[in-house]
């Protein structure tokens, strides 16, 4: 029989206001095996933990139940406390009487009853707990960063500076990401390239950083500390070692009709191309879809003009397999498709553009060489209307329910830059709310209004109406004036909602990292573990976790790096001892469990058994506890019940069921 202690936490008033904690303590005494029960204000506090330690030692406890907040919150805390007092940490069970009880119920009697039942279930379970010892696994001292935008670059540099090897895998031909497409950055109006390019150079020159561009993660296996990753290096058709980056091939390439990804399709590029002048590596790729040589077999101009002989039409995709201890996801974002928002006439007029397209228009390396002009006729606009929240804050199925966070600030930036450079252009912004939390942000927005005379109108736009003369009639609300206004404009700029890069779903599935309904990666804790995924060894950097501006992204990238470094600094990791075990006397050796194990942790061995006097050799399932992650799929697949999961055994769960239904 166990000697169980029950510790009921008030959590200030979080629990005690709705649950009669003294009643719970009283009821605890009536449960089998309970030799000690007490309540305290904050069990997780130092004083609370001291009480636990004292009880363990004085009452010689062999198991304990803490009735408190979610085990996802403080199970680790209480396990450590128990261990310090000499109790095996796996003899601790948590009854979640806060998130699952006091916070959701109003009636004290009802909540108290439920808390008692939850406590009973935990006691019933702990009665069947057995001490467990974690195993050890090694840590590969190398990190993988998926995505080479500012988030990935910053994370890689920080990890590399701490002395660990880092690989960056970037899908496109160059690192740089979205930030490389921006013209200026708020709130200081620095030139984006001027602050990004040095970071790109630093990453590429760093002896600890290895960059795979034009590459994708193909397969991930393993677990924290010991991931194995296949990386597909897509055929560049250019030998990276030979190419000098002279650019002649791009100049001479006769196929120049492919839409430029970098310029958001506003102009075209050659079939052999580097996305932009400052690309790293400065080695072009051949877009085989656009290349005449690949389409027809004739041409070969690039090969002829290449002095270095770097063009290789025969190059094939290559799979590189690497081991990593930690993986950082930094896959970034894209703007949403505006197909469902055609009331803004995006598909009907060239002069309705997204803000990201405006960045390219404003940029000296962009399609208009930095001149502000209408894309339809090249004329200089006199009236520009900005529309905020296009696709953001939409609870219907057209857009995104969240605020994209960056639009208010970049729209103020655009408005300000236009008014600064072209004082004769009128700028109107239709907004729902202007959201500017951040250092010097509201001041920035107010400057747009007060110094630059940008006309902010509170109200959404209902329809953009292209006119026969090429002008755009913007029909919107002015809610403060209670008017519907019709405004003639030469250009309309849509602050389009951002969404996680569409690849993230595939990557999350490979990493078994969870993802929310909007395809943002979920953090382990919204407040306390914002840069870790709930999946151990996976860290989150940048917009893949939620909308962010550049300073926030860089801050989070650094934080993700620190978390990864903390992991890589360890030589060994303790493994979860809640793994499956096969009972050799019950195992049929039928291989059913092996077929459902996602980790290949189950193998079969011929073992000599002594089954109540019968000695024979049997085919028996053996679990490799270093590989087993403790999901339990095998335990249900096993018809004989030979396979059981430590910490969540059949009898333990049944004891909980019984206690709840009692």
């Amino acid at each position, binding site marked *: 029989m166990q000697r169980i202690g029950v510790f009921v936490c008030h959590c200030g008033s979080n629990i005690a206001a709705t649950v009669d904690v003294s009643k719970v303590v009283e009821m605890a005494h009536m449960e089998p095996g309970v030799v000690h029960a007490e309540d305290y204000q904050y069990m997780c506090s130092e004083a609370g933990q001291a009480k636990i330690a004292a009880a363990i030692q004085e009452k010689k406890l062999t198991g304990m139940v803490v009735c408190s907040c979610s085990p996802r919150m403080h199970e680790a805390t209480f396990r450590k406390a128990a261990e310090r007092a000499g109790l095996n940490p796996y003899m601790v069970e948590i009854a979640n009487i806060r998130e699952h009880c006091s916070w959701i119920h109003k009636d004290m009697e009802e909540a108290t009853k439920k808390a008692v039942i939850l406590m009973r279930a935990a006691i019933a379970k702990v009665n069947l707990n057995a001490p467990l010892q974690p195993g050890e696994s090694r840590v590969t001292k190398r990190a993988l960063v998926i995505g080479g935008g500012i988030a990935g670059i910053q994370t890689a540099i920080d990890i590399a500076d701490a002395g660990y090897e880092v690989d960056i895998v970037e899908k496109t031909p160059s690192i740089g990401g979205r930030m490389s497409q921006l013209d200026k950055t708020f709130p200081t109006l620095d030139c984006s390239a001027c602050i990004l390019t040095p970071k790109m150079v630093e990453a590429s020159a760093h002896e600890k950083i290895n960059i795979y561009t034009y590459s994708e993660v193909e397969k991930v296996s393993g677990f924290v500390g010991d991931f194995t990753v296949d990386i597909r290096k897509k055929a560049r058709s250019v030998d990276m070692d030979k190419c000098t980056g002279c650019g002649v091939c791009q100049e001479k390439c006769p196929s120049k009709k492919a839409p430029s990804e970098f310029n958001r399709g506003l102009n075209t590029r050659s079939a052999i191309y580097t996305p932009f002048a400052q690309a790293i590596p400065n080695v072009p790729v051949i877009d085989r879809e656009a290349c005449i040589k690949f389409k027809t077999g004739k041409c070969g101009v690039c090969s002829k003009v290449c002095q270095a002989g770097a063009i290789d039409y025969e190059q094939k995709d290559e799979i590189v397999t690497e081991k990593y201890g930690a993986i950082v996801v930094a896959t970034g974002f894209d703007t949403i498709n505006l*197909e*469902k*928002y*055609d*009331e803004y*006439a995006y*598909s*009907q007029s060239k002069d309705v553009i997204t803000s990201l397209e405006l960045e390219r228009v404003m940029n000296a390396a962009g399609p208009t060489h930095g001149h502000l002009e209408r894309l339809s006729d090249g004329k200089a606009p006199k009236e520009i209307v900005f529309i905020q929240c296009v696709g953001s804050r939409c609870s219907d*199925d057209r857009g995104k329910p969240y605020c994209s966070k960056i639009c208010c600030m970049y729209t103020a930036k655009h408005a300000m830059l236009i008014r600064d450079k072209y004082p004769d252009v009128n700028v109107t912004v239709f907004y729902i709310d202007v959201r500017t939390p951040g250092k010097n942000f509201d001041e920035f927005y107010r400057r747009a209004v007060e110094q630059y005379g940008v006309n902010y109108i509170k109200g959404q736009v209902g*329809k953009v*109406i*292209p*006119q*026969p003369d090429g002008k755009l*009639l913007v029909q919107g609300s002015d809610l403060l004036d209670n008017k519907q206004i019709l405004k003639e404009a030469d250009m309309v700029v849509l602050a389009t909602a951002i969404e996680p890069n569409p690849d993230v779903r595939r990557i999350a599935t490979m990493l078994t990292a969870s993802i929310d309904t909007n395809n943002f990666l979920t953090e382990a804790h919204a407040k306390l573990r914002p840069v870790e995924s709930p999946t151990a060894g996976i860290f989150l950097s940048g917009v893949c976790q939620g909308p962010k501006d550049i300073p926030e992204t860089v801050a989070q990238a650094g934080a993700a790096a620190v978390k990864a470094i903390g992991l890589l600094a360890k030589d060994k990791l303790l493994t979860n001892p809640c793994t499956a075990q096969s009972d050799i006397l019950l195992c049929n050796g039928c291989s059913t469990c092996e077929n459902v194990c996602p980790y290949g942790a189950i193998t079969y061995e011929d073992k000599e058994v002594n089954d109540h006097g019968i000695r024979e050799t049997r085919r028996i399932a053996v679990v490799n506890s270093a590989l087993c992650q403790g999901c339990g799929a095998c335990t249900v697949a096993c018809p004989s019940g030979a396979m059981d999961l430590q910490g969540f055994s059949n009898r333990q769960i049944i004891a909980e069921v019984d206690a709840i239904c009692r």
Partner: protein
Amino acid sequence: MKYSYYPGCTLRTKAKDLDVYARASAVALGIELEEITDWQCCGGVYPLGTDEIATKLSCVRALNEAKEKGQELVTMCSACHHVMKRVNDDMKNVEDIRTRANNYMELDEPYAGETEVLHFLEVLRDKIGFDELKKKVTNPLTGKKIGAYYGCLLLRPSKLLAFDDPENPKIIEDFIRAIGAEPVIYPYRNECCGGYISLKEKELSKSMCEKIMESAEGFGAEMLTTACPLCLYNLNKSTGAKLPVVYFTELLAEALGVRGEYQGKSAGAFGKEEMEKEVQVS
């Protein structure tokens, strides 16, 4: 291809053209439109109130008849199409309405939205295909610049009607291309003409129609085409027929070369046999 056909009240009276030319074209296209027996008017406007049942029953009756015949239900009129589709959606997805309506109806087997409702334009696009239609055109309307006027009922609410992009539709434009003419795209083609209020708020609806006409004209349209009797009436009435407005079925019949023979005929002339006879002759 055989469909249950729901003409609706207006097609029997003021909008005969919409009906007659549709039937003529159907024959030419090898489609059989079997008129629903004893159909009753859909009411012309979808009752938005979630507690309205009685006003939906005439639609349920027609839908159920099509279900029993195992046919899809086709309408020509935008309003009928709108009301039918939405009532059908209620019967399919709103348990309360389905139960109550079925209680009234006393059918052998309860109706639960099984019938598919199609606008004739959808039949042209999805069942026949505009490419196929193009092949059957004998008298292409080459050179005609035609503006499509959608109005509201065909497109909205887009989730329920699932007809076309509500802000940038293209079904009528594709239709116009198929019959050999040139579509004129203008921004007000999905803006309301104020049809429903044209009885009592004549000034208001007039200003709306003028806006639409001006826009279409500005973009070079020589005529407008619509699927809605109310829009046709209102646009003609309120703007003094600045640009001619015709039903899409009339254009279709003309392109298929069957317009002349049917001009001025009533729907009665379209018994199955007569139709076959007439088409063979032509």
